[in-house]
């Protein structure tokens, strides 16, 4: 009779087998196979969602800036999407796009629209009329005014919107694991089912850390993108 095949899972450390609150050795051993890929996927999910969301909302905000009637319907639709719980929105999309990354991305893009649209439009509208007057006096066309005056002055408001959108997308993307095993939600959900504490805490800390880091990077980006604001800040 052949010997039964017992898979070799390696030695679990004492800490892991006792399921203590946090085992650094598990994190060290599983960084490459588990945590690092999940982190990279999480960043991808976020970048794609915010990228598409930004393009759509910027287009809609520019349209609403010129044509006032665009504002209400777009704001209304994006507010409704925003109010729908993420897990529900994912499940409502599953019959249409399946258990795929597309499903997740559509929902994540949907959640960025309200904040990005509102902030961009508010930024464009906050440009002082005398500045626009001066631009016209210098002979700038409407297009030139938009690119050289209105959009640059709206940058702080746009980046403020991006900060909220990025941070909340990072938080939301963990829920994506219910649909498709991608991102940091995957290890968290898996560990939750096995009641394995170290993995929950490690992956959770990575998600929070990523959100904080992204927020700091965007603040730095705003300082670089609006050098004229530095003198005002220090004053």
């Amino acid at each position, binding site marked *: 009779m052949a010997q039964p095949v017992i898979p070799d899972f390696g030695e679990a450390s004492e800490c892991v087998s006792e399921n203590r*609150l946090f085992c650094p050795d598990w994190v060290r051993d599983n960084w490459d196979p588990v945590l690092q890929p999940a982190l990279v996927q999480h960043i991808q999910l976020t970048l794609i969602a915010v990228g598409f969301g930004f393009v759509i909302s910027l287009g809609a905000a520019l349209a609403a800036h010129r044509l006032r009637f665009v504002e209400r319907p777009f704001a209304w639709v994006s507010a*409704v999407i*925003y*109010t*729908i*719980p*993420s*897990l*529900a*929105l994912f*499940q*409502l999309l*599953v*019959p*249409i796009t399946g258990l795929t990354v597309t499903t997740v991305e559509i929902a994540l893009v949907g*959640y960025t629209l309200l*904040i990005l649209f*509102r*902030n961009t439009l508010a930024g464009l509208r906050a440009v002082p009329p005398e500045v626009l007057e001066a631009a016209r006096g210098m002979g700038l066309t409407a297009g030139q005014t938009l690119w050289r005056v209105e959009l640059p002055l709206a940058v702080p408001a746009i980046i403020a919107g991006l900060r*909220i959108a990025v*941070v*909340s997308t*990072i*938080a*939301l993307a*963990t*829920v994506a*694991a*219910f649909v498709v095993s991608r991102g940091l*939600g995957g290890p*968290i*959900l898996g*560990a*939750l089912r096995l*009641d394995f*504490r170290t993995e*929950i*805490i490690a*992956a*959770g800390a990575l*998600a*929070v850390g990523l*959100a*904080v880091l992204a*927020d700091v990077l965007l603040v730095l980006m705003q300082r670089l993108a609006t050098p004229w604001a530095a003198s005002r800040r220090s004053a």
Partner: protein
Amino acid sequence: MILAALDVFANSLDFLVDRRELLLEKTWEHIELSLVALAISILIGVPLGVALGHLHRGSFLAVNIANIGRALPTLVVIAVGFTVLGIGFTNVIFALVVLGVPPILTNAYVAVDEVDRDAVEAARGMGMTPIQVLRRVELPLALPLLFAGIRTAAVFIVATATIAAIAGGGGLGDILVNQAAYRVEGLVAAALCVSVLALAADAGLGLLQRLLTPAGLKQQVSSFEPDVRPVV
């Protein structure tokens, strides 16, 4: 693909009709869970925010707590709560309150802190005690914004309660995280219920917010839309 999707939606409508008792029971559980969590969040967030706003102290903490709340993924809070408190109602309420307090606290703080100083000054000049100033001037003027925070938290809690099912919270999430038992139709039906619940909470509290706004403030407030709402 579109036909198959329509088929699923048609089946989920059947599910809505056939299993309405289950859905009603889970919806009611969901509402109960959310109300308890919201009540606790209000009891913690409002007094703290109002006190800090009245004293104009702790602005850094009060304003940033909403940002911190936003950066905390729901799933992480539930999962970490689960590792510490174990499975069940307490853990779920804990997670919902952790996520529900920040918008309430921040809005309550900002609402009271930003009440027109001249109005407060005038009230003091009339001989009102600090408590009278708070009750008769600051609170009525702060009410709309304060209530906006409660509205945000309510929508947030309804959404979070869905995910909380993973830690044994009950409610509509029980169906949403259990595809094996309820199949896609059941999931879509439950997703519809929870979406309607969230939209109804938002609309209902929005209406209440408008009713609570003192007449003299209506003009100002209509143009203000708080954008500190977190997403779940």
